[in-house]
Structure formats: structure tokens, C-alpha cells
């Protein structure tokens, strides 16, 4: 019980800090939009090919923006030596991971929720679909759960900002593949039975990723 109280307290702290500064959220949103604009210019999106390109564009924007947010999540703790405070919290180390993972997921989801309407308007892609939101949720959980572990891994190295994407993107290849494919199938109007295999892959990745991260997090931050 006190485990989850600790987790919730840490999440509340992160959310409060983010609500006051809006640092990660605005950076992620702006960057995602910039990726969308860049892609539009680079790939010559037209009405007849938008459904083929839009899913990939959407997930590349999410992934790149997510890396930005994840880099902030531990960097902000380090700047004012708050990470020591977190380590001294009288809870299991995995609670720190779970809390960071939840807040990173929340921030990414918030940025994605703001991004999607703009994306829909810019590219005329219909995003008003609960199935699509579910895929976005699963994909974001997978990305943030692996990403939080790697953000902690990269935290103390000299080239933090460079190392996080280099380590994280190869690991989340399954998430990006499955999310992009199923997004394309949903936009294409296919039924659940057709994209169910991708859904299962996303779910499996989310579970494996959280389990491995919870088990290994204490080794990463033990000082």
C-alpha cells in the first residue's frame, strides 16, 4: 500500500512541476509539429498518398518528441541534485522507476493529444477513433517504459542527449513497427481481427519492457 502511495506522490510531484514549467510538454509538442512540417516538405504529401505516409509520420513524430521529453525527465532531477532526494525516498527503487514511467507516459500522451487534432487538420487524416487512441496508448506505454530505463542509463554519461536515442530507437523497433502498421490499418478502415496480431505484439512488448525495467532499474541507478 505504502509502495503505491510513494509512487503516486512522485507522480504528483512530476505533474505539478510540469504544470508549472510546461517545459517538456511544450518542447515535445513543438518538436512533433516541426517533424510533421519537415516530413510534409520532404516527402511531398498529397491527398492520394497521405494514408500511406501519415501513420509513419505520426509515429516518427511521437518517437522523436518522446526522446526529447525522456531526456528532460532525469536531466531535470540531476540539475538540482533532486535525484539524490529521489534515491533516499523510503520506497523500493522500482517505485522510482514506476513513478517516472507513469509521468513520462502522461506527458507523452498529453503532447500526443494536443498534436493529433492539428495533425488531423493539416493532413486531413481522420483521428476521431477510439481504436486509434488505444493503439496510441499502447505504443506510448511501450516507448515510455523502455525509454525511462534508458534515460536512467544515459543520465550519468557525458553525452546524455546523444546516447538516449541511439540506445532507445533500436530497442523500440517492435513498438514503432506494430504501432505504424496497426495505425495504417485502422485509418484504412480494417477490422479489429485484421490488426489484432499487431495489437498482441504491442501488448507483449509493453509487458516485457515493464518487467525487465522494474527488475533492472535498481542496478542502473545504484550509487
Amino acid at each position, binding site marked *: 500500500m505504502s509502495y503505491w502511495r510513494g509512487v503516486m506522490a512522485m507522480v504528483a510531484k512530476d505533474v505539478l512541476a510540469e504544470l508549472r514549467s510546461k517545459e517538456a510538454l511544450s518542447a515535445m509538442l513543438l518538436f512533433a509539429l516541426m517533424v510533421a512540417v519537415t516530413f510534409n516538405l520532404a516527402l511531398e504529401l498529397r491527398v492520394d498518398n497521405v494514408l500511406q505516409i501519415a501513420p509513419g509520420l505520426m509515429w516518427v513524430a511521437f518517437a522523436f518528441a518522446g526522446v526529447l521529453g525522456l531526456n528532460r525527465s532525469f536531466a531535470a532531477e540531476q540539475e538540482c541534485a533532486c535525484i539524490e532526494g529521489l534515491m533516499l525516498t523510503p520506497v523500493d527503487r522500482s517505485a522510482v522507476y514506476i513513478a517516472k514511467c507513469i509521468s513520462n507516459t502522461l506527458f507523452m500522451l498529453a503532447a500526443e493529444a494536443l498534436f493529433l487534432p492539428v495533425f488531423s487538420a493539416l493532413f486531413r487524416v481522420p483521428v476521431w477513433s477510439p481504436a486509434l487512441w488505444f493503439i496510441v496508448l499502447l505504443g506510448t506505454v511501450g516507448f515510455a517504459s523502455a525509454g525511462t530505463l534508458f534515460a536512467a542509463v544515459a543520465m550519468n554519461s557525458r553525452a546524455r542527449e546523444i546516447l538516449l536515442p*541511439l*540506445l532507445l530507437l*533500436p530497442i523500440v523497433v*517492435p513498438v514503432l513497427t506494430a504501432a505504424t502498421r496497426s495505425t495504417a490499418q485502422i485509418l484504412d478502415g480494417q477490422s479489429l481481427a485484421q490488426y489484432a496480431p499487431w495489437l498482441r*505484439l504491442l501488448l507483449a512488448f509493453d509487458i*516485457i519492457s515493464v518487467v525487465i525495467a522494474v527488475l533492472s532499474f535498481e542496478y542502473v541507478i545504484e550509487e
Partner: protein
Amino acid sequence: MAQRHNDLLQTLVALTAVLVVISLYTVFVVAPTEQTMGHVQRIFYYHVASAWVGFLAFLVACVGGLLFLANRSLLWDTVSAASVEIGLLFSVIALVQGSLWARPVWNTWWTWDPRLTTTLVMCLYYSATMMLRQLGGSEERSARVGAVLSIVGFVNVPIVFLAIRMWRTIHPVVFTTAGFAVAPRMLLALLASLLAFTALYACLLWMRIRVTQLARDISRLRHGLTSRRTL
């Protein structure tokens, strides 16, 4: 002790040399020339052997990482780090050999097939972990983090493969449950090169571990010297 290790290593190197010669003989003399592909098919024997060593090395790195986290002996970290380096080397060799073979046979250097893509992703990931080791803080910390990364990386490989295989594959399948899809004399050449490369891997791993240990000894000695000088 050191002398006995040296003798053992020399025996292993000699054995590897003999195995390599045998494998060269079986690959170029014993194995028949493939009907449609011709001589270029002979890359196959070393291609499979390199890919196998790459995979084995990443497995050893993962096990080394687990053992390091379990009993915190720096030796296991040295094994894990050395194995990552060798695995990366052989995976890149396998990719290059595959490209050389694919150009005449598939009429392209590269295709986004599951095995190719998975190997490439694996190479990129392990390169990043090596970068992290070079940039990351203390020896103890980089050992811990390196262990976690080698475990996570290895667990992830099958998932990456599965994800990409959901598209169609054109990579030839040699090992199936129905037996080997090659002629017996070709199989002999393949087994000879697998054996030779595995022995080569053992030599390289052993030498790499020794180099790391010597480097550690030297830095300790140097540290001792400088601290004595300041006294």
C-alpha cells in the same frame, strides 16, 4: 598460473589454425559448386559461421552481464564487454558477406528482410552500448550499466525479429525442422567453418579479456607510482 594460461591459449590458437585450414579445404575443395549460383555460393559457409559467432557472442555477453550483476566480479564484466565487441565485429562481417552474396543472387545489395533488418538494428544497438561504455563514468558504473544493456539487448532481439517477420521474408531458410536443405558435402563444409569460427571466437575472447586485464593492471601500477611520487 599465468604460464599455464599462456600454454592453454597457445594450444587453443594452434587448434584454431588447424580448424581454419580444414574448413578452407572443405569449403573450396570438398564442397561441390552450386548449380545456379556458382562459386559465389561458397560465401554461404563463412556467412553462416560469422552470423552464428555474432549471435553466440551476444548470448555470452548477456550471460556475462547476468553473472556480473549476480556476483559483482569484474571478470564477468570483462567477458561481457569483450564479447560485445567481438559479436559486433562478426555481425558486421556477416552483413558485408551477405551483401556480396545478395548482389549477384538477389540482384540487390540490401533488402529489408527480417533477418537483415534485425542484424542491422542489433549492430546499431550494440555500437551504442560500446559508445556508452567509453563515455560513461566510473568503471563500476559502466560495468553495471553495460550488464543491463547487454541483457536488455539480447532479450529484445527475438521481438525485433518477430515484428519484422510479420512482413514477408525472402531470406533462404537452411535450418528447418525437416532437416538441412543442403547437400551432404556442403553440410560438411558448413560444419567445418562453424567449428573453425567458434574456435576463433574463443581465441579472440580470451585475448581480448587478457588485454583488458593487462590494461587494468597497468593503470593500477601507474596509479601506485604516481601516488608514491606525491608522497
